[in-house]
């Protein structure tokens, strides 16, 4: 049977068997619970299938023409539009979003900048080693989860990385060592075996661990007998042994590592440590895999880089790219915008209240396909297809590998895809400008 790619999370499993007649999906085989919920979104109770405009405080259904006109009006009145989201859409839609931002002289950024984009930023000066999932499946021997809990966020990740045997070996779980570094005993600890290492580091003390490892790497026997950051001496020695002895090690980093600190930069120090270990390693190397939730979190930076040579956010003025020091957080905090276009994400729920309240005070246009907290605030809601099921396109997996998504069934009400909608908006505004 033909296999399809699931767009439930950034793992983009491409081995999913879907039984469908082109109109309904009857069976999904191989996808985990998160993937199944993604396929269920097609018939979700709170799905939005017609455009909505807020009139007298309530969202009511309107025609596409009225909705698009309303959006064009809001954007025309604005001088500094803010575009945010773009992690739940294809690369083609991300490209269309950047094209739109340039047309309306806006500031565009994706969810990645408050998540894994921080690693790419630092990587510009320090360098970064990535690896692919297939490499880890076939050759990996050390897997470290640092501040990451894939058992709850990306259920099949540990299945693929830790338990698979791969092409070249007879055994799987037995020859891979798992190390988990986390202050909380999460569900991921459930797959630990006798030879694995569980390091319950004290909260906010990861920096001491990294600095101690760096020191020990350079001059042996510098680990204090009482241990560091809540981890005892023998465990630290074992950790360093694994790090320097692994032939193909990978560190999977999650939210725990990318938190800001006032006196130091944890991301920078971790990248530094990895560079040090890789330089001293004679037969192997340690690479990184960055975890992220939305299925195309890695894509925006690739698209921005190939279109404009800039990764991360872009700001346009006079229809040209302009240099800016601001990121999405400072832009919103300073109130340096007068309307926002939110695409495929729910900032009212996931941003801190101090920022989401500022977005809520200005006109908000939402492009999404089901009810969220943001839809309860929006002035206009434009629904689109569910990517990976009702429309296709390119997406980047969490290990930076591009994967093609397919269309399996037709969308309801002839809904446009995100790419089509953003291009339509661009057309309307560009036409307005040249008149």
């Amino acid at each position, binding site marked *: 049977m033909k296999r399809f790619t699931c767009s439930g999370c950034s793992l983009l499993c491409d081995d999913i068997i879907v039984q469908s007649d082109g109109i309904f999906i009857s069976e999904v085989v191989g996808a985990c*619970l*998160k993937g199944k*919920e993604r396929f*269920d*979104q097609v018939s*979700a*109770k*709170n*799905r939005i299938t017609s455009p909505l405009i807020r009139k007298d*405080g309530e969202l009511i259904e309107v025609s596409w023409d009225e909705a698009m006109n309303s959006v064009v009006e809001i954007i025309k009145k604005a001088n500094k539009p803010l575009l945010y989201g773009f992690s739940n859409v294809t690369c083609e839609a991300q490209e269309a979003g950047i094209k739109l931002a340039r047309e309306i002289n806006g500031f565009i950024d994706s969810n990645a900048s*408050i998540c894994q984009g*921080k690693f790419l930023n630092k990587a510009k000066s320090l360098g970064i080693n990535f690896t692919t999932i297939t490499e880890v499946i076939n050759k990996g021997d050390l897997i470290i989860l640092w501040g990451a*809990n894939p058992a*709850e*966020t990306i*259920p099949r990740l540990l299945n693929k990385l830790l338990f698979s045997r791969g092409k070249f070996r007879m055994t799987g779980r037995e020859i891979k060592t798992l190390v988990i570094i986390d*202050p*909380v*005993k*999460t*569900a991921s600890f459930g797959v630990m075996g006798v030879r694995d290492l569980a390091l*319950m580091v004290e*909260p*906010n003390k990861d920096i001491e661990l990294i600095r101690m490892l760096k020191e020990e790497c350079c001059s042996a026997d510098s680990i204090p007998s009482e241990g560091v950051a809540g981890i005892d001496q023998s465990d630290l020695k074992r950790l360093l042994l694994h790090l320097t002895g692994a032939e193909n090690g990978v560190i999977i980093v999650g*939210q*725990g590592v990318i*938190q*800001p*600190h*006032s006196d130091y930069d944890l991301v920078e120090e971790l990248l530094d440590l990895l560079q040090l270990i890789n330089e001293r390693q004679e037969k192997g190397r340690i690479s990184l895999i960055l975890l992220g939730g939305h299925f195309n979190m890695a894509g925006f930076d690739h698209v921005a880089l190939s279109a404009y040579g800039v990764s991360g956010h872009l700001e346009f003025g006079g229809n040209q790219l302009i240099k800016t020091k601001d*990121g999405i*957080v*400072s832009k919103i*905090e300073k109130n340096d915008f007068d309307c926002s276009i939110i695409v495929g994400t*729910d900032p*009212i*729920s*996931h*941003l*801190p*209240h*101090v*920022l*989401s*309240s500022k977005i*809520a*005070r200005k006109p908000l246009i939402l492009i999404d396909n*089901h*009810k*969220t*907290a943001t839809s*309860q*605030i929006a002035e206009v809601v434009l629904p689109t297809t569910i990517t990976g099921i009702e429309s296709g396109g390119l997406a980047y997996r969490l290990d930076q590998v591009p994967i093609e998504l397919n269309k399996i069934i037709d969308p309801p009400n002839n809904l446009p895809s995100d790419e089509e909608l953003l291009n339509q908006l661009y057309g309307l505004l560009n036409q307005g400008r040249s008149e």
Partner: protein
Amino acid sequence: MEFILNSIRRIDNDQVKEHAFGTEESLEEKLAICFINPKDFEKLNLVSSLHLKISNKERQVIVKVKKDDDVPNGMVLMPVSIWSNRLSVIQNNEILYKNIVVDVEATREPIMKFKEIIQEFLVKN
């Protein structure tokens, strides 16, 4: 009492799932909740009928409490949600989602409803 707040992800407490498939009641049931160690539960004089008020300098939130053996002492865990994000802060132009210093106390007050939080947003200047 001073605690550390950590926002976490749990597959059963997922706000995207509740928004897409659930109701406001199911959203509140799954996400207006926090987890603490049983010893801390006793230290705070909590019982199942009381709620927990978690606050920092700027804001507060009132949620249900559940005991969880895997939570370290002095820490309170909340699933990522519009409730937990009332307490996330900005530091050096970046967002702090983990290890936020908060104050917790037991309270009889009702949990904060989803409608209340949205109402606050809708009141524009």
